[in-house]
C-alpha cells in the first residue's frame, strides 16, 4: 500500500542503541564499523530471539508429534513466511533456506545446470560479479561443455546494456547477474535485464546479497526467476540464506542434496522426493537462523525500507563529497545509481596500508579485491579500500573515516 505521508526520518542514535556491538571498542577506541557490505551487525532483537529459541523452544522440526517440536516448527516456518512477505513471493514454498547466498547460487547452477544445460549452451553473467556468481557457473559449464559469456562494464562500473543485448541468443539458457555490486555499489537495471531475457524465454537469477539491506525487493514485480541472498548481510544471523525460485523452475529441477527432509518415501529400489520447499532442504535446517532472519527482516520492515534508503542516500552523498575533498583520492565505481558503498584509492598508497592504519584508529573498513578479481583486473588495480554504510551508520562515523583516511594518507605519502 502506498501512503501519501512523507518518509519518516529515522532516529539513528536510537537505532544504534539496538546494536550492542556498536557500544564496544576496537583497538581501545570506540568502534567505527564501516564494513557492513561484508556482514552487517545484529540488532538485539535478533540476538535475543536466537537465545530464547535455544533456551525454551528447541527441538527438531517437522517430525515430532510432541508440543515442543510443533512449536519449533511453527517458529521456523514463521521465519519462512517472514521472508516470503519481505520479498513478496506468491507462495511460501518458493522460499528455500540455504546456508547463504553462495549456496543458493551453487544450488541453482548445479540443479538448473544438470537439467537444462547442454554442450554449446551459454550462461550469461556480468564482469562485476562476486566470485560466488562466477565460479559455480564455471564449474557447471565445464561439466556440461557449456560456455560462460560475460557482459562487460564501462569505466563508471555499469554494465554495458547494448553488449548484453548482443550476448543474448538462442544458445543462452540462463542469465545470472548481481543486483548491487559489492565492490562498486552500482545498482544494476535488473528489471530491464529480466525483461529482455524473458523476451527470449531465458530465466534470470539475481544475486541480491548486497541489495536486501538497501532496497525493497518485490520478486513478483521484478518477475525474477531466482533471487538469492544471505541472512547475515541483512542484519540476520550467519549460516542462513535464501533462494527464492519460481515454482515452475524449482519443480523442474532435480534435488541438490540427498538425505532426510527432502524425501517422500525411501526404498532401496526407488526414492521419491518431497515437495517444495523441502525437496531442496536435505537434513536438519538452520532453525535458529531462520527464526533470527525473520526477526531481522521484521526489524527493518518496521523501521521502514524507504526511510532506511533515505538515510543511506544521505550517507552516500555526504561520504562521497567529504572523501573527494581528500587530495589524491579517487572513487572506483561512479554510477549515478549507487547503494551506500564507497570504494576508493589514494594516489601513491596501497589499500592494505590504509586499512591497517584505519584499524589502529578503531575504524573497520575492507581492503583488497572484495572477491571480484576480474573487476579489479578491468580497472588495473590491486584492490580498493571499501567503506560501506548501513542503517546504524552515522554522519559522525563518516567524519571519523575521513579524518582517519587523511591521517593515514599523510603517514603513507
Amino acid at each position, binding site marked *: 500500500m502506498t501512503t501519501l505521508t512523507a518518509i519518516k526520518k529515522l532516529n539513528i542514535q536510537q537505532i544504534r542503541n539496538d546494536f550492542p556491538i556498536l557500544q564496544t571498542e576496537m583497538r581501545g577506541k570506540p568502534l567505527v564499523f564501516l564494513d557492513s557490505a561484508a556482514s552487517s551487525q545484529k540488532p538485539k532483537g535478533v540476538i535475543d530471539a536466537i537465545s530464547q529459541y535455544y533456551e525454551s523452544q528447541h527441538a527438531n522440526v517437522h517430525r515430532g508429534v510432541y508440543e515442543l517440536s510443533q512449536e519449533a516448527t511453527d517458529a521456523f516456518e514463521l521465519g519462512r513466511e517472514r521472508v516470503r512477505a519481505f520479498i513478496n513471493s506468491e507462495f511460501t514454498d518458493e522460499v528455500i533456506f540455504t546456508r547463504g547466498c553462495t549456496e543458493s547460487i551453487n544450488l541453482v547452477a548445479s540443479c538448473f545446470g544438470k537439467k537444462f544445460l547442454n554442450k554449446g549452451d551459454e550462461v550469461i553473467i556480468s564482469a562485476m560479479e562476486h566470485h560466488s556468481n562466477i565460479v559455480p557457473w564455471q564449474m557447471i559449464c565445464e561439466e556440461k561443455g557449456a560456455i560462460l559469456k560475460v557482459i562487460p562494464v564501462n569505466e563508471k562500473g555499469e554494465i554495458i546494456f547494448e553488449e548484453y543485448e548482443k550476448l543474448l541468443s538462442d544458445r543462452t539458457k540462463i542469465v545470472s547477474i548481481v543486483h548491487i555490486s559489492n565492490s562498486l555499489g552500482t545498482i544494476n537495471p535488473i528489471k530491464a535485464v529480466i525483461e529482455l531475457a524473458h523476451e527470449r524465454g531465458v530465466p534470470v537469477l539475481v544475486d541480491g546479497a548486497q541489495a536486501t539491506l538497501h532496497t525493497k525487493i518485490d520478486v513478483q514485480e521484478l518477475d525474477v526467476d531466482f533471487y538469492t541472498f544471505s541472512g547475515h548481510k541483512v542484519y540476520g544471523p550467519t549460516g542462513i540464506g535464501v533462494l527464492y525460485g519460481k515454482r515452475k523452475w524449482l519443480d523442474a529441477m532435480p534435488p541438490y542434496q540427498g538425505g532426510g527432509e527432502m524425501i517422500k518415501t525411501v526404498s532401496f529400489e526407488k526414492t521419491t522426493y518431497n515437495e517444495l520447499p523441502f525437496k531442496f532442504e536435505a537434513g536438519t535446517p538452520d532453525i535458529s537462523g531462520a527464526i533470527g532472519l525473520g526477526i531481522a527482516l521484521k526489524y527493518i520492515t518496521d523501521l521502514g525500507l524507504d526511510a532506511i534508503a533515505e538515510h543511506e542516500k544521505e550517507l552516500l552523498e555526504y561520504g562521497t563529497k567529504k572523501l573527494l575533498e581528500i587530495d589524491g583520492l579517487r572513487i572506483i565505481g561512479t554510477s549515478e545509481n549507487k547503494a551506500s558503498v564507497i570504494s576508493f584509492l589514494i594516489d601513491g*598508497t*596501497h589499500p*592494505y*596500508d590504509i586499512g*591497517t*592504519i584505519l584499524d*589502529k584508529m578503531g575504524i573497520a573498513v575492507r581492503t583488497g579485491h572484495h572477491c571480484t578479481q576480474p573487476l579489479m583486473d578491468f580497472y588495473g588495480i*590491486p*584492490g580498493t579500500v571499501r567503506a560501506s554504510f548501513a542503517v546504524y551508520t552515522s554522519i559522525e562515523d563518516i567524519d571519523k573515516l575521513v579524518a582517519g583516511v587523511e591521517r593515514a594518507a599523510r603517514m*603513507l605519502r
Partner: protein
Amino acid sequence: MTINEIQDGIIDDFSYFDDWMDKYEYIIDLGKNLPLIDESEKTDEKLISGCQSRVWLGVEHKEGIVEFKADSDAVITKGIIGLLIQVMSNQPAKDIVESELYFIDKIGLKEHLSPTRSNGLLSMVKQMKMYAVALNLIK
C-alpha cells in the same frame, strides 16, 4: 651478529616507541627507504601471492651464507619485510633453519604474520626457511 642478537636489537629499538603511530611511522619509513628488489626483477617466479598485498622474494647463497632480497607493493608490508631481512639475511643456512622468530610478537606486529591476514608475509617466512632447509641439505 647472530639472528637472535639482531632480533634483540630490534626489540630494544621498538621499546622506545610510545604509541602505535610512532611505531608505524618507523615501519613506513623503513618501507619507503628500502629499494629491495629492482622493478625488472619482480618476476612471477619470485612472487608470493597474498590476497591483500604482493610480496617478491629472491635468494642467493655463497659458501653456506644465504642472502635474501624481498619487496612488496604495500609499504607497511615492505617495512616489516625490511625487519625480516635484517634478521634472516646473510646468515648461515643452518641458523636460519633453526631460528625462532620471536621479535615480531615482542614488537607487537604479530597480527601481520597471521595466516588469515593474507598479505604474503607468512608465506614469505615459510619460503625463506624452505630455501635454507634445501641449502642445508645440499651442503
